[in-house]
């Protein structure tokens, strides 16, 4: 009861602050009036009586202050007072405040972004029940998780340690819902997929194992929630509708729940269909050729992963002995589902761990730098602190005030950081560098991220706020007022300076690397690809998705080529399975053997060239030079002898030289012989790093494929042809999905890796610059502050401005110059590594050197600006008076 009363009283004090203040004022005023009344009564005139009463009352302000203290005095209240005090101090030094908040925002923002990457990829499990017992199978060699369908069936039926085994595979198909045919990503899944994952449909139903009745049975679609939302506007009537996938009819049976986005984090599908509905009997019955992406299931309770692996290995051994031609040794292991085990999870884990470490170091460096700034502030305020100590203020109270200031700064920095970070994350999540692939890693910050950011802000506030503690605890008010400063003059190199030098050096390394990367990137945009991408439009389609098979494919391709030729503005047209450097995802290596080889085994492979299947016009449209021999003609068809054009690398690898290769034969893996009729100049095919990639070109009529990429060389801006190309193709077949882009645009995507590396280096460089700036600022400010009196005397004795500056900032500038030079040299060395990521990156570039020097110099100028102003504005007269 008493406690409640006192609580209510305190709260009313807190909120009724101004009312109480007014009452207190009134009460004291009335006291004086009462006293004046009495004095008047004994004969004083009123004015005189009031004057006398005021004198007798004593220090009005002091007693009011003490009364307030006596009445209020709650912890919350004094915290409020500390906060007000700290805000006032921070407002008085906007430069310091801005630098501190900016540094913290950068450091905490970086941590928040990295942590949400960690959160999104590694911490957040798949959104399914019991994710901790869900495992994927990894098989020893080759494509780690993949398996053939018959092998999957054996694993499913013979294992005794999983509750059940499902498999899924990602593929792209043409979907026709009656309007606009599009290319979409889906998961082909086994019938038991949803049951094994223990999830329930949002609406409608899922398909089940019982629906599977051999090839092309169970033509059912389960939509992902996202696709249902965006393409069917949440219409419950979508269930039961018929749509066409690759021209075959399917029924939508249900919609998956919103939180379920597939079982592979890096690719969320638009919908799910049974494997058996899409694949033909041939594919389903072939035991060789592991193609199904991943096999997953829940471990039975009480079974360890080691036991399960042993169980699967014995099945693997059985499969190997029973089908020795199709199966090799399988070293089965289990990995957490969602990230595809070693292929993605391990490198991702390493990458994210490295990033976390880096971000942590950045935050620590920021705290160290801010700590020294804080020490400067405490030193600057040593007189104030000394006076307060002398007047009986407790050290705890002064420290509390310093900490309040540090925490205010760190929370402000944290708030700015998380705000910036969240904006960045939102853009990163929405950003999709490859429109063909729905990479969906939801990076949006959740409560965890905000909590971590707040915690980090708090911890860093405590960390850098603690730096001046010793200084304050040790300080003796008598000494300070006598000598004027908390700081001791010292000439030796301190740990703090070494740390700062390291930071500046690292910053210089990063600045150097990012400039090298930018220059390399710019140069690689204009390098020699071995073909000319300008003015070429690519229209990519897969006739497979539009339902063409066998003889219908070349016939349709011929009609497509003819239709394109009639478009005004088109200079020439060619057809290929994939345009070089277009990230079509279809280029694969094939094994070739010398003509003399009769035993076609992995050990006798002569080369592994990429295979292009092209129409005769390809070399002309791509402007890819053929150095020797001939190009294809329309007569190189099924009935003619099989021919190939190879590139120089191929010729050198297999025959020793281009001259020796021309006219010779080689074998492909099924034993067919091909004659080399031409040698094409080397170029870039899959990535810009291709310098020694062997390639063979085959006539599309002799090596038919449904993958059809039209290449149109335009007389002007190729983008203008896009609409006409689309409508001509629609005229030929309404149900054919097409992806149109210019070749230079496609090229940009190939540069994605280099771009990402460049941006990452740039961001790190900027963070490094901010940190160095804070550090130098701190050091310069410290140096100016502790030598203020000396500088004042120098000014009084007639020192010129540059002499003052040199005395004040010389050491900081020297440190900057030394560390920057070291960093620049290191950066030049590091750029050799960079050449691996960014094509044509070279540090031997005067522009880069000039850029680094300029950048570091600007950092120096910016960082020393405020201290320099302070040093220059020293007024010796005032200074001496104060001291």
């Amino acid at each position, binding site marked *: 009861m008493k406690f409640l009363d006192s609580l209510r009283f305190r709260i009313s004090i807190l909120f009724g602050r101004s009312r109480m203040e007014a009452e207190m004022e009134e*009460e*004291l005023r*009335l006291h004086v009036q009462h006293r004046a009344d009495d004095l008047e009564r004994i004969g004083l005139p009123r004015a005189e009586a009031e004057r006398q009463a005021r004198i007798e*009352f*004593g220090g009005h302000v002091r*007693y009011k202050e003490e*009364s307030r203290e*006596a009445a209020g005095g709650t912890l919350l209240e004094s915290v409020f007072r500390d906060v007000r005090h700290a805000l006032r101090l921070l407002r008085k030094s906007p430069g310091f405040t801005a630098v501190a908040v900016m540094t913290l925002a950068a450091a905490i923002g970086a941590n928040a972004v990295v942590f949400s990457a960690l959160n999104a990829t590694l911490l957040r499990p798949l959104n399914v029940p019991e994710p901790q017992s869900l495992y994927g199978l990894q098989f020893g060699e080759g494509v780690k998780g993949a398996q053939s369908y018959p092998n999957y069936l054996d694993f499913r039926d013979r294992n005794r340690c999983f509750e059940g085994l499902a498999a899924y595979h990602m593929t792209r198909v043409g979907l026709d819902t009656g309007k606009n045919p599009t290319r979409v990503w889906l998961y082909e899944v086994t019938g038991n997929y949803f049951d094994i994952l223990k999830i329930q449909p949002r609406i409608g139903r899922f398909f089940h194992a019982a629906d599977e009745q051999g090839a092309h049975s169970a033509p059912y679609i389960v939509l992902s929630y996202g696709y249902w939302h965006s393409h069917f506007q949440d219409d419950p009537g979508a269930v039961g509708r018929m749509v066409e996938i690759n021209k075959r009819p399917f029924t939508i049976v249900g919609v998956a729940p919103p939180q379920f986005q597939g079982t592979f984090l890096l690719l969320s599908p638009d919908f799910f269909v049974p494997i058996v509905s899409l694949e033909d009997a041939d594919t389903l019955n072939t035991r060789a050729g592991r193609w199904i992406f991943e096999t997953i299931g829940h471990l039975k309770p009480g079974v360890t992963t080691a036991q399960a692996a042993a169980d699967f290995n014995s099945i693997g051994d059985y499969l190997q002995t029973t089908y020795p031609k199709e199966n090799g040794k399988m070293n089965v292991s289990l990995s957490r589902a969602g990230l595809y085990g070693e292929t993605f999870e391990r490198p991702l884990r390493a990458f994210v761990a490295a990033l976390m470490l880096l971000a942590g170091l950045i935050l620590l460096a920021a705290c160290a730098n801010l700590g020294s700034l804080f020490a400067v502030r405490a030193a600057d305020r040593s007189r104030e602190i000394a006076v307060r100590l002398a007047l009986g203020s407790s050290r705890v109270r002064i420290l509390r005030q310093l900490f309040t200031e540090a925490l205010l700064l760190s929370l402000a920095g944290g708030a700015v950081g998380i705000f910036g970070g969240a904006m960045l994350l939102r853009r990163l999540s929405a950003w999709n560098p490859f429109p063909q692939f729905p990479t969906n890693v939801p990076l949006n910050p959740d409560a965890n991220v905000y909590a971590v950011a707040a915690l980090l802000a708090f911890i860093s506030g405590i960390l850098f706020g603690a730096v001046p503690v010793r200084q304050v605890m040790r300080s003796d008010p008598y000494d300070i007022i006598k000598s004027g400063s908390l700081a001791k003059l010292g000439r030796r190199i301190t740990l703090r300076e070494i740390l700062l030098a390291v930071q500046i050096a690292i910053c210089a390394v990063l600045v150097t690397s990012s400039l090298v990367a930018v220059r390399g990137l710019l140069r690689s945009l204009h390098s020699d690809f071995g073909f000319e991408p300008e003015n070429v439009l690519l229209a990519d389609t897969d006739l497979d998705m539009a339902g063409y098979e066998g003889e219908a494919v070349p016939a349709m391709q011929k009609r497509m080529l003819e239709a394109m030729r009639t478009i005004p503005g088109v200079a020439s047209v060619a057809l290929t399975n994939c345009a070089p450097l277009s990230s079509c995802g279809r280029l694969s290596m094939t094994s070739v053997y010398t003509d003399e080889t009769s035993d076609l085994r992995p050990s006798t492979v002569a080369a592994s060239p990429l295979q292009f299947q092209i129409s005769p016009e390809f070399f002309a449209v791509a402007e890819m030079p053929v150095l020797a021999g001939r190009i294809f003609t329309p007569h190189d068809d099924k009935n003619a002898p099989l021919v190939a054009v190879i590139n120089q690398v191929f010729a050198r690898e297999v025959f020793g030289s281009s001259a020796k290769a021309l006219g010779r034969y080689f074998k492909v893996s099924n034993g067919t012989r091909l004659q080399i009729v031409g040698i094409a100049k080397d170029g870039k095919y899959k990535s810009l790093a291709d310098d020694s990639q062997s390639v063979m070109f085959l006539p599309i009529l002799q090596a038919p494929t449904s993958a059809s990429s039209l290449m149109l060389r335009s007389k002007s801006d190729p983008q203008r042809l896009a609409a006409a190309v689309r409508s001509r193709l629609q005229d030929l077949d309404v149900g054919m999905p097409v992806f149109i882009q210019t070749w230079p645009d496609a090229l940009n995507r190939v540069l994605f890796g280099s771009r990402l590396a460049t941006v990452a280096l740039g961001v790190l460089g900027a963070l490094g610059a901010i940190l160095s700036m804070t550090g130098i600022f701190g050091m310069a400010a410290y140096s100016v502050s502790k030598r203020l009196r000396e500088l004042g005397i120098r000014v009084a004795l007639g020192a010129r401005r540059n002499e003052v500056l040199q005395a004040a900032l010389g050491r900081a500038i020297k440190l900057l110059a030394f560390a920057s030079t070291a960093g620049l040299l290191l950066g030049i060395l590091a750029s050799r590594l960079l050449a691996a990521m960014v094509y044509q990156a070279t540090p031997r570039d005067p522009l880069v050197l000039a850029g680094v020097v300029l950048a570091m110099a600007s950092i120096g100028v910016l960082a020393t600006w405020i201290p320099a102003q302070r040093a220059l504005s020293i007024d010796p007269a005032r200074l001496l008076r104060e001291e």
Partner: protein
Amino acid sequence: MSEQAQLLPGTLDLLILRAVSLGPLHGYGILLRIGQISGDALLIEQGALYPGLFRLVRQGLLKASWGTSDNNRRAKFYELTGAGRKRLRQETDNWNRLVSAIAAALGTQPEEV
């Protein structure tokens, strides 16, 4: 005036409680009452009264309410709460014990040791 005694630290609160125990008073009235009951023997700067008053209110020993004084002015009147009355009794006992102990100590003759 010169023979007025300095107040010992901590004794002002006790004096306030005692003054108010005789009936509700406003601040100036408390000072007058203290002067009256102590025979004007104590030196108190008038303003020094108020921090003490607010402290006692906060400790729940006094309660305050606005009213009208004899001078026909508005004034804030203080009176003892139950807790205040109890505290006054305790403090008075303590004080008396202290005083008699000090007095005994001071009154001790050398031969008595």
